[in-house]
């Protein structure tokens, strides 16, 4: 029997870091990061619903955490991640139809996703603060 040869050192294809970062590449990474964050963010949704179903005290506990500085930062991040992932998802659905792959179109879509997600997040928070002021 022939001796098993040591595996040949073959060149590996270069990974992400060798390429010059582009906007569309960054957006792809952010889509995954926001998706993973929202995955764990559902714990907040579940906690909020369970507390509401449990007792006024439990619901008050969620309320005081959400209105703390840390709570507000997490909620703000959750809002932006939700909007960004939603708009990024719509971008993917457009791509699924075979449209939007041109160099100008894909750049435009990337910029629209960023501008859209930040604008929507700010609008939601302004409306949220108005509602809180009105209801209290």
């Amino acid at each position, binding site marked *: 029997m022939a001796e098993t040869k040591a595996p040949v050192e073959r060149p590996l294809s270069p990974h992400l870091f060798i390429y010059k970062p582009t906007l569309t590449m960054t957006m792809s990474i952010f889509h995954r990061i926001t998706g993973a964050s929202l995955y764990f963010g559902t*714990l907040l*949704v579940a906690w909020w*619903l369970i507390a509401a*179903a449990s007792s006024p005290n439990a619901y008050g506990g969620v309320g005081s955490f959400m209105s703390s500085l840390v709570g507000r930062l997490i909620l703000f991040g959750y809002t932006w991640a939700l909007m960004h992932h939603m708009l990024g998802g719509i971008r993917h659905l457009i791509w699924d139809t075979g449209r939007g792959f041109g160099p100008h179109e894909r750049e435009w879509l990337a910029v629209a996703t960023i501008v859209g997600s930040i604008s929507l997040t700010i609008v939601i928070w302004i*409306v*949220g603060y108005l509602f809180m002021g009105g209801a*209290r």
Partner: protein
Amino acid sequence: MVAGKMSTPLGRVRGLGAARSGTEQFWRQRLTAVANVPLIIAFVLIVVGLLGRNHAAVVQILGSPLVAVIMLLFILSITTHMRIGMQVIIEDYVHDETAKLVLLMANTFFAVAVGLASAFAILMLSFKV
């Protein structure tokens, strides 16, 4: 297509390849993505509308039939979507077979637990138990 070949595209798909599954996941991810858009908009509107309200008002609104059904659909769609999404992430980065299987299991447990707990809470609010 090679002319004169007798095998059809269906015949090649029937083997289903190394993954032993077809396009159900790909399709389900798109299906829930489309459903998520209106459901997320509705969810954000519901949450903003509940800000600053006391517990009794929140229970009444979340438990009302229309809001409860929208919330149930939202929970079902996002937990289905996030389970598939996290599975893709795990399959992309975890190459150790044991670790991958454990994480894939944990992923399903997490998605089902979060979904069921949320749905249970919504039903409790609806039936004012």
